[in-house]
């Protein structure tokens, strides 16, 4: 279990007469492998990690405070800036939470469009993860492959809502825009384009001896520890827990689709890699089903012009690419939320870093940070 009391000094019983003195290394906040401005203080014995301490908050923008001073609609674009590689999921979670609070439901067409975009976003997020993770481990080529293919997704987003990264695609009660002419055709073309590409990534890595040696048995975390630490998403599934909010408590239109939840056995970095690769394939499956069945109809439910939810509170969560993304919203009956709490998956998952890298080597810290798939914008909010 993780040791919350972190000692920077070597304990007396840990010393032998030939011990080299331990090294405190400050990794970050400017470091190529910390995916942003994460600072990890490492206590090392040679190359072995004795303990870590994460220093976060460099990107803290006070999103939760801002929410209290904006109306429900005005706050919507702010959530896109949290997990900026999976902005669609953030918007989806927020819109659905407020809809629940208002007790309205988005129309079927809007729900299907939401699913398509959210799954495309999941693909984009996983592609970005794969590229940077492989780069951290030293394979530079996958990064360019994944960026090439992610570009196609961003093009679809851009055509749909005008933004590539911080996609403000949804609105409380439905979608902001009707799909553009040829949306279905382009998504189908993209599916055809990207399916062999995933095989291409796997060809470079899955059976690569060095890749397997670098990831197998690294950063292992058991299912029990995962649950105790609140770790969710692919990390939890790689440890063998078959749990996905899309299946467990379906939201949007996920109940209509047929897909598998990939799980791993050992919960090491390699399993997480395999799980995410399989998740990308499952996302493609969902998109293929959804794009064929987008129903006709309105894209907006009947919501008042001024959103004033009744007094009450709600917790709603969705399966973001990184794990469980929850919104806890307290309404006091006015036009502004009384309190918005975001339950960020990256923040909670990052807690497991210390446990995962204990007694491993420095190089594994990089691999584990990569495999946790954190986005500092979401950790710090």
């Amino acid at each position, binding site marked *: 279990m993780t040791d919350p009391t972190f000692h920077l000094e070597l304990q007396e019983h840990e010393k*032998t007469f*030939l011990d*080299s*003195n331990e090294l405190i290394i400050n990794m970050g906040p400017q470091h190529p492998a910390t995916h942003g401005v994460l600072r990890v203080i490492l206590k090392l014995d*040679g190359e072995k990690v004795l303990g870590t301490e994460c220093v976060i908050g460099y990107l803290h923008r006070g999103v939760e405070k801002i929410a209290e001073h904006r109306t429900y609609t005005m706050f919507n674009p702010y959530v896109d800036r949290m997990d900026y590689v999976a902005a669609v999921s953030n918007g989806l979670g927020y819109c659905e939470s407020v809809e629940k609070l208002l007790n309205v439901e988005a129309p079927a067409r809007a729900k299907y469009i939401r699913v398509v975009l959210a799954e495309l976003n999941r693909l984009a997020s996983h592609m970005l993860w794969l590229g940077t993770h492989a780069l951290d481990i030293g394979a530079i080529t996958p990064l360019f492959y994944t960026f090439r293919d992610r570009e196609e997704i961003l093009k679809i987003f851009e055509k749909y809502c005008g933004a590539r990264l911080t996609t403000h695609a949804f609105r409380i009660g439905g979608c902001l825009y009707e799909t553009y002419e040829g949306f279905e055709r382009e998504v189908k073309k993209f599916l055809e384009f990207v399916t062999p590409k995933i095989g291409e990534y796997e060809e470079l890595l899955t059976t690569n001896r060095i890749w397997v040696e670098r990831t197998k048995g690294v950063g292992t975390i058991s299912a029990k520890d995962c649950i105790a630490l609140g770790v969710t998403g692919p990390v939890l599934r790689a440890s063998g827990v078959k749990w996905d909010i899309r299946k467990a408590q379906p939201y949007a239109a996920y109940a209509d689709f047929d897909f598998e939840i990939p799980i791993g056995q050992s919960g090491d970095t390699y399993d997480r890699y395999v799980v995410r690769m399989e998740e990308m394939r499952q996302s493609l499956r969902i998109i293929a089903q959804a794009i064929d069945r987008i129903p006709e109809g309105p894209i907006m439910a009947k919501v008042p012009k001024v959103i004033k939810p009744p007094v009450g509170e709600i917790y709603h969560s969705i399966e973001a690419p990184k794990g469980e993304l929850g919104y806890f919203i307290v309404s006091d009956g006015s036009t502004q939320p009384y309190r918005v709490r975001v339950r960020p998956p990256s923040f909670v998952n990052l807690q497991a870093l210390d446990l995962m890298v204990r007694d491993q080597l420095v190089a594994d810290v990089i691999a584990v940070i990569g495999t946790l798939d954190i986005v500092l914008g979401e950790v710090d909010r």
Partner: protein
Amino acid sequence: MQPVATTFFFYFLSGLTLIAGVLVITRRNPIHSALALILALLGQAGLYLMLYAPFVAGVQIILYAGGIMVLFLFVIMLVNIEKSQREEQFNKQWVVGILAAVALGVLFVLVYTKGRSLFPERVAQLPEQSNTQEIAVMLYGNYMFTFEIASLLLLVAIIGAVVMAKKRI
């Protein structure tokens, strides 16, 4: 090929070795001492080359300068340098040191004054080409047994080092 500027190189290399040797014992920073020692060893390798012993020179560079001294530096870097810098370097063995220095000095004087009579003939000119082979023949022929004993000793030393360094076996 005739050697070029032999005298110049002899004095240059011996001077280099001597100065580096003095630096080894006078520098306070252990890293600087080690680097000076490497310089001394390289100078020595150059002297070996001038004695038509290229193999010995090569081995000197590979083993001492490239191998052992790197490990030396490795260890020095790992141990606490600030602490060792603060420690007294000229410790209580100065009596032994002076005795050794006096003995060495007497030896030098003896060699200088009586050298010509002690070694009446010049050392035989070593052949330039087959030098490496002769060493091989000596090591694996005449002194085979000693050579093997030396290797055994090294093996014992390696095992001892592993046993000492490992926390659990």
